């Protein structure tokens, strides 16, 4: 069934991710059931056949990510999705994808952890997402939206970015962003996968060329170091070109709240209320979590008196903020864990407690 384009329609976050992938020319999805991401495989099961693509429910997250590895090796745009415990299981495969320099998109609709945790919204997989996650010397490029529209936009761009940097790209959402419905506008133009350029490195049959080998095994240490440095250079390049963030009311702010995703939506309400009470608070929202907006937060720290980091975790992104701030101003932290969504009142109380005085 044709989706209305160019006008506002109501869509769930998880559905928007699926639509974005299809619009980006993704024609291979491999997944395994886990809440709260289940609408993603459900929607792909329905829509992938309409697009002539591949949907397969794998026997495990391990199998799913390795099917992605195979599909990516064959040169097509491929994707998997899961929620926190499932993403832990995918880490082995993500490490292999990274070292084999294979592009793909992985979605994590985060839930409360650790262990089995619960199915409520959480941001407690930040470390796993941005520091590598699996074994080895790699990162995934990580993007986190805060609205259904942005989940669509970022997922769609993720496929371009994955191909450009030959790297897995992780879309980080949470149970709130995955489940909530909001108006979105789908762009008119979509990617025709048949028109995407052929990937010269893909293992898609050595017809009219030398054979290709996709590998992450470099038994001689200097060879592995060379590959790792090549991959690192791509991260440096991504830091230049893919660093994304948004600021609200930051120009004259004395206190900046740094938050991403759902936590940023809560924070922005608190900031509005703080402004109404005459406190000069602003929001800095990282959208790319790796590359992290280091320079931009350093510049922010020069301007404001304090930074408050708000997360749905016990403090993970705050370490990167501290690294960026490097002592330029005090960095405070406020977070809830276990799937509790922090309230605007809690954030407002913290802002007030930190004592950012209104200027006359």
């Amino acid at each position, binding site marked *: 069934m044709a989706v209305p384009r160019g006008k506002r329609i109501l869509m769930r976050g998880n559905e928007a991710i699926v639509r974005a992938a299809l619009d980006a020319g993704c024609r291979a999805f491999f997944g395994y059931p886990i809440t709260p991401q289940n609408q993603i495989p459900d929607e792909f099961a329905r829509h992938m056949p309409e697009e002539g693509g591949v949907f397969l429910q*794998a*026997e495990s997250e391990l199998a799913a990510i390795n099917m992605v590895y195979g599909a990516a090796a064959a040169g097509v745009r491929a994707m998997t999705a899961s929620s926190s415990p499932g993403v832990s299981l995918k880490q082995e495969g993500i490490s292999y994808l990274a070292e084999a320099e294979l592009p793909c998109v992985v979605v994590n609709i985060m839930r409360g952890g650790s262990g089995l945790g619960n199915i409520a919204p959480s941001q407690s997989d930040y470390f796993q997402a941005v520091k590598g996650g699996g074994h080895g010397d790699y990162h995934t490029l990580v993007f986190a939206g805060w609205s259904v529209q942005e989940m669509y936009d970022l997922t769609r761009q993720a496929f371009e970015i994955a191909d450009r940097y030959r790297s897995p790209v992780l879309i980080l959402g949470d149970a709130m962003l995955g489940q909530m419905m909001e108006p979105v506008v789908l762009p008119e133009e979509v990617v025709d996968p048949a028109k995407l350029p052929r990937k010269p490195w893909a293992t898609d049959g050595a017809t009219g060329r030398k054979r290709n080998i996709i590998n992450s095994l470099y038994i001689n240490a200097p060879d592995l170091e060379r590959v790792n440095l090549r991959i690192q250079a791509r991260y440096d390049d991504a830091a230049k070109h893919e660093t994304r963030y948004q600021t609200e009311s930051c120009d004259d702010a004395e206190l900046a709240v740094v938050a991403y995703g759902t936590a940023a939506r809560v924070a922005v309400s608190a900031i509005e209320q703080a402004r109404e009470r005459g406190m000069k608070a602003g929001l800095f929202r990282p959208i790319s979590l790796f590359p992290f907006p280091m320079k931009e937060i350093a510049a922010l720290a020069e301007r404001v008196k304090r930074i408050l980091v708000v997360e749905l975790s016990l403090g993970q992104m705050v370490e990167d903020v501290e690294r960026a701030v490097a002592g330029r101003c005090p960095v405070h932290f406020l977070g809830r864990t276990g799937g509790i969504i922090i309230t605007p009142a809690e954030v407002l109380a913290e802002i007030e407690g930190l004592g950012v005085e209104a200027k006359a």
Partner: protein
Amino acid sequence: MHYCPGCTHGIAHRIVAQMLDEFDLVERAVGMAPVGCAVFAYDYFSCDMVEAAHGRAPAVATGIKRVRPDLFVFTYQGDGDLASIGMSETIHTAARGENITIIFINNAVYGMTGGQMAPTTLPGQRTSTTPLGRDTKLAGNPIRVCELLSSLDGPAYIARVTVTNPRRVREATKAVRKAFRAQIDGLGFSLVEILSTCPTRWAMGPDKAISWLEEHMIPYYPLKEFVVAEPLRERP
């Protein structure tokens, strides 16, 4: 080749390579190399090759085959890779009737990592992790992979062969040919188990390894065709 003297990997590789030529597949085949002694298998075939994580080759092969059904996709895996860490992938790939071909090397031991117990190590067999011989009460029982997979509806061809003499090499070649045929004709999952020697980890000379395989492995792992889809059956 990097394999030890007396190892039968070389013969198994040759059979696979011969079939790639015979069916004119070099330009449209993609092979999966495993983790284990055959980890460098990608060096020995002229077609595109993908190195898979330990045990995951059937899932990787599934990913390739599903997006490119026109490619010929095969995996080459040892017993630890296929029947221990990758057993889940093996069973489910077979159950789905995934149209790929698996060449399964069973030498009853982990070769590359230093001779540890494999899922196919025989009762009483000494390995570095069963130094007194595999005690099935402690270390469990060996797994007969072909028999296990034969209960599923997905496979089109499953056979166990060995390569201990020229006649058996010919029989093994016939089996691999049928497995390739199964995929080419779109019949579904095919697997050929090749009982193989590991003189180094068995701590015996190549000659003795051949006779040990014949005397101990074949009685436990009978050589036969377990599943032969109707179109592959030989007419009398």
